[in-house]
């Protein structure tokens, strides 16, 4: 008997399977998952607050699940929109996984929900590797974070279906070089849309909502070069 065994197992295969199942479950009930990824402090929560209230003004049934290492502050902020909000404390874990998400949605997600925003843990490393069954993966960066952010976190930006720039209202004050940022995004994720937003001015809020709805309605979503499904499964 041989002592060395060929295993040929993708490390993320299990999560990918759960994610596929969740995506199918969500589709069957008419819900779309939007996965929001960014560094801490990029303004995810502020933008999400506006997305939720704008969606409700449009008569859309939305919900949000927000994950943090600690505190329920974000859920309190998001709940002001009137949308159902759930806070998940990851207990030290730096990202969400598909199975965890499915467990949290079970018995909570309101039946008629059309859009579910998942605010991932503020981190651009580990969350990038975990498919959450989303139809749209949005990676956010604020104008204060530096134009080279996409190069520093190429997996996160490289796998985004949509890149969102936040806090554009202070872009000039902090000397944000939009062209350089766009060039860096294009290097790791050619063809991905970059959407400019400002929670303070309400810029881009409706556009982001439109992209999420379109993804849910089966519109073709950008396919990143880095998204090679076979990379995890070939044997």
């Amino acid at each position, binding site marked *: 008997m041989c*002592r060395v065994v*060929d295993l040929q197992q993708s490390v993320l295969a299990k999560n990918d399977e759960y994610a596929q199942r969740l995506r199918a479950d969500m589709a069957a009930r008419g819900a779309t998952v939007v996965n929001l990824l960014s560094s801490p402090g990029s303004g995810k929560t502020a933008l999400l607050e506006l997305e939720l209230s704008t969606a409700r003004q449009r008569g859309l049934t939305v919900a949000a699940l927000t994950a943090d290492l600690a505190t329920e502050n974000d859920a309190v902020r998001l709940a002001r929109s009137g949308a159902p909000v759930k806070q998940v404390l990851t207990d030290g874990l730096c990202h969400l996984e598909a199975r965890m998400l499915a467990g949290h949605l079970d018995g909570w997600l309101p039946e008629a929900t059309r859009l579910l925003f998942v605010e991932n843990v503020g981190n651009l490393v580990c969350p990038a590797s975990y498919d959450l069954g989303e139809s749209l993966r949005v990676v956010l960066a604020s104008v204060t974070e530096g134009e080279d952010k996409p*190069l520093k976190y*190429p997996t996160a930006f490289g796998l985004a279906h949509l890149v969102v720039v936040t806090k554009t209202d202070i872009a000039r004050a902090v000397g944000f070089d939009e062209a350089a940022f766009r060039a860096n995004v294009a290097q*790791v994720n*050619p063809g991905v849309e970059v959407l400019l937003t400002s929670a303070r001015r309400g810029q881009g809020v409706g556009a982001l909502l439109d992209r999420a709805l379109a993804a849910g309605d089966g519109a073709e979503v950008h396919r990143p070069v880095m998204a090679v499904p076979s990379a*995890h499964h070939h044997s």
Partner: protein
Amino acid sequence: MSIAMAVVEQVAAAARDAGVDSVQQVRLEVGELAGVVPDALDFSFELACAGTALEGAELIAEPVPGRARCEECRAEWPTGMPPQLRCPRCAVSTGQLLSGRELRITSVRWAGEPEEPEPVRVREEC
């Protein structure tokens, strides 16, 4: 850390299935663009192995370089890190990734089993 834990979990499950209680070595293919830092993985692997069938096991991470090809002009290039995924020759945004996203357990070596004796070959045919 979560990646290391996933590796340990999967290998431990394979060991159970094989009726083996100790693992000596794990081989992993780690793509340049897999989003995993090999040094960090090494460190977390050791921690994740504690108290499992993998305690003390060696992790061998084999790097897989990122390579891309342009669907327009068929040029092939190493992506580098941070990766260049636009075609450096024609700048058309239709790059295709050929390799670099691997994150795969390729083989494991169980401990404690007797080494298979090298078959004795008469090397006359060479």
